[in-house]
């Protein structure tokens, strides 16, 4: 394998991994607070991709406007999901919310089939993102491949800033350890939970948009597999930890791309790697790379 091809793979892995990471961050925030696997998160990601498709290709809005519109609409959807399907179940056994999450996931996917039809639709990539740049040594890079990781890192950086440098961020971190103690400090817990859903959905929207540009098409079930894999990335990095989710996403991206790059015969098994990683981490370090240990009380 020559350097050029290796760099291509490296960039590929970086952008795939950072996309997994962006989605994983949404899972990890919600799980950290509510101990709920938000199965619908992958479908929120899909909605983001569809919204941008409609905004820019069907309604011919400029890209920047289309992207912002898509992010706003997706965030609203994320908030609605929490309000309608999860909030009534806050006091219920955790398993009820989980089943509700499965129902919501199912609903969004099929609703998308009804509204958008099941046919995959091609996304037109803005040419500026696709024009290869020649570097020295014959290395060619496509701007999109650089854009994706850069945007992802900037956004996760911004999220970390919010979590560690602002009051709502402080409340969000506090809630994930002890909801009741946080309420005693005068924090409106439901607002903070909504904030977590909103931020997670916005990040998922960005990931969905970039995903749609990368594999230039959208379809109603496009969120399913990346969604599950991103959840695995979140578990791998340590559920509840934002940096962990990003690291988990990157590791997953590199494992998938590099294993197929070095062992092309394994390409059919590509989707299985995530699950093997998951099972291994759960067996040997159930709290994930950066996760905290939770003690059972007797």
């Amino acid at each position, binding site marked *: 394998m020559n350097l050029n091809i290796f760099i291509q793979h490296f960039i590929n892995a970086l952008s795939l991994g950072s996309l997994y990471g962006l989605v994983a961050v949404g899972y990890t925030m919600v799980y950290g607070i509510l101990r709920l696997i938000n199965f619908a998160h992958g479908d929120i990601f899909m909605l983001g991709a569809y919204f941008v498709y409609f905004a820019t290709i069907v309604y011919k809005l400029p890209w920047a406007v289309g992207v912002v519109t898509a992010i706003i609409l997706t965030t609203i959807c994320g908030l609605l999901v929490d309000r309608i399907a999860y909030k009534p179940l806050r006091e219920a056994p955790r398993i009820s919310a989980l089943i509700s999450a499965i129902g919501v996931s199912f609903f969004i996917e099929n609703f998308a089939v009804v509204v958008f039809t099941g046919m995959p639709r091609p996304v037109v990539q803005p040419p500026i993102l696709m024009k290869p740049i020649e570097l020295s040594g014959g290395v060619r890079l496509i701007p999109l491949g650089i854009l994706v990781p850069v945007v992802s890192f900037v956004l996760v950086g911004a999220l970390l800033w919010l979590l560690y440098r602002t009051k709502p961020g*402080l*409340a969000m971190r506090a809630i994930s350890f*002890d909801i009741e*103690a946080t309420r005693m400090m005068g924090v409106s817990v439901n607002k903070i939970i909504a904030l977590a859903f909103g931020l997670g959905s916005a990040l998922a929207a960005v990931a969905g948009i970039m995903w749609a540009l990368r594999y230039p098409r959208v379809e109603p079930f496009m969120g399913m597999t990346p969604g599950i894999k991103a959840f695995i990335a979140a578990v791998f990095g340590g559920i509840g930890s934002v940096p962990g989710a990003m690291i988990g996403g990157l590791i997953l991206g590199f494992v998938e791309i590099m294993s197929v790059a070095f062992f092309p015969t394994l390409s059919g098994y590509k989707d299985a790697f995530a699950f093997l990683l998951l099972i291994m981490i759960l067996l040997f370090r159930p709290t994930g790379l950066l996760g905290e240990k939770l003690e059972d009380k007797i």
Partner: protein
Amino acid sequence: MESMLKVEKLNVNYGAIHAVRDVSLSINKGEIVTLIGANGAGKSSVIRAIMGLVKAKADEMTYTSPRDNNTVNILGRPAEEHVKLGIALSPEGRRILPQLTVEENLALGAYTRNDAQGIAEDVEYVYSLFPRLKERHRQKGSTLSGGEQQMLAVGRALMSRPDLLMLDEPSLGLAPILVDEVFGIIREINSQGRTILLVEQNAFAALKVAHKAYVLEVGAVGLSGTGAELLNNPKVRAAYLGG
């Protein structure tokens, strides 16, 4: 004297357990009132019900804010609104947030406030009460000793500038020398104008500082009086050691 908190016939049930039965109490502005009783007598349930953390029934539960002398019903209000009214709780078991630093725990205590200047002053005030916290201001809560965690819990409750400060077992698990220190600080806080409701297992220490005390026995008020009266009451000893 102006009444600040008035509770009439408070009842708390957990499933089949009747944890608090018809408890009535009143707190006047500027007082230290203590609620003592053996383990499992329902002390914490009373304080949690006042804070709005557990579902409770009562004939009356009202709070009169010294800020505007408005009397409001606080039964059935969510806990976060109590903080805005001027009530704060340092809960049993400290419940500090282990992964947040000392500074962040204090900042969380000031969550309802927006006056950066005042908050900074209060942080210094808490550090002056508990110099040990200042030394450890960048450390995570989980790395503090039990006594330091207790100080942090009290300091955090003070950060909302409460008019009524409720302390649930502040001496629990502390070495005797620290117990003295904590009660000294409770006095100091009170002398600066804050009203205090204190739930304690350490009856003698609590009675010494209290203006008024209630003894809880299996969920109901058995005795009440001034701290000094109860300090010499043989029944108090009986309530703890079973006679």
